[in-house]
């Protein structure tokens, strides 16, 4: 039985984003898209989350925060980079303070490009992330409940 698929809880973190993608992420929760249909909960607590949704690139200030949030999440966990800035830094790539995409700091499982990423593509990314989550859970089980 798919244990992970039916209740993916999402933690949304805004890196060095322009807020465009953040608004689209929140739009997913509105009546038009309603991701709660799939059991998705937008939680504010990394310890309850299964999927880390990051918008915007990573700068020197938020790097340690992202690392800490990621380390607080319980296995199995999946990271989704939403928007082109989260994928590779986007238009801010050459800024002196930007390190680049999310994968410069933590491992990313799903990339959702777009500027801003549309709610449809964000939902698509989350659905892909849920499959990876299930896969990671199976691997975790094979290793006897141990992480990694």
């Amino acid at each position: 039985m798919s244990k992970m698929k039916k209740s993916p809880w999402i933690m949304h973190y805004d890196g060095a984003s322009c807020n465009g993608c953040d608004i689209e992420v929140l739009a997913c929760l509105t009546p038009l898209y309603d991701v709660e249909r799939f059991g998705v909960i937008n939680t504010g607590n990394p310890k309850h989350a299964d999927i880390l949704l990051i918008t915007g690139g990573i700068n020197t200030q938020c790097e340690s925060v992202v690392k800490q949030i990621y380390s607080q999440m319980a296995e199995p966990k999946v990271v989704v980079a939403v928007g082109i800035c989260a994928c590779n830094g986007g238009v801010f790539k050459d800024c002196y303070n930007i390190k680049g995409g999310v994968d410069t700091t933590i491992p990313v499982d799903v990339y959702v490009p777009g500027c801003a990423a549309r709610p449809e593509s964000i939902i698509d990314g989350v659905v892909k992330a849920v499959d990876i989550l299930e896969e990671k859970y199976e691997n975790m089980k094979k290793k006897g409940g141990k992480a990694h």
Partner: protein
Amino acid sequence: MKSIPLEARLIAAAIYFIAAPFIGGLLSGVDRVISARMQGRKGPSIFQGFYDIVKLLSKQRNCVNKIQVMYLGSFLFFIIFTGALFFAGCDLLMIFFSLTTANIFLAVAAASTNSPYATMGAQRELLQMLAYEPMTLLTAVGFYVATGTFKSAEMLTQIDLPAIVSLPGVFVGFLFILVIKLRKHPYDLSTSHHAHQEVVKGISTEFSGPVYALMELSHWYENVFLMGIVSMFFINNNPWSILWSIAASVIVYLVMILVDNTNARMKWDNMLKNTWIATMVLGALNIFILHIFK
């Protein structure tokens, strides 16, 4: 005067122990679906609560400290103990004190983690207890004044008129604290039932995976027990009254969902003021009048 045999009371407690998680889980699913419909959304499956618990149980065990699990286990144990006492027809005072003990364990479990968010949640939980405790006590006293007994089993067999007839004020006062107990807006200070974000996740911040599942399970047990108290107001010595008392508690639950979706969260001093005013005016006055005219 007939009384319910001990075997039947033990069976009722056993049924509660086995069936309450299923009823509680369904109640939470219904809550989420109806809340979503009220907001113009489709909402999740009605079985979403069960999916969540299954997922939480299969996540990695991340305990902040070892003692936390013991405290949460005690919370679950005392909640089940409270409900079992109630459905076995024991003393209402004993039942409410057992409920208080259970909630103390929850607050201690959160405070034991030393996390600032969880500690703040624990403090708010204690404030909530301060707000609702007088009313729970008055509910027990109200039942005694109305029916002449503290035992919930004897109320079932002895009274002709449902308690709601003589205790309308106590009933409304109990609805006030039910908002706190079910963790609904506007009084969901320590943590909210839904995933609204206030001081991260309040009292449940440091519980993750299977440990959090333990807390959710306890809440399902607790909710079923609370709905049992609501139906006590509508029950009399007619066996069919069980049916309409269940119907009444379902209606009360729907009213709670409506209140949840039409209110914003209040500050703790407002909560304390409002619940204590409701306790004094509705609860105490009702019992006082009943005492005089009886």
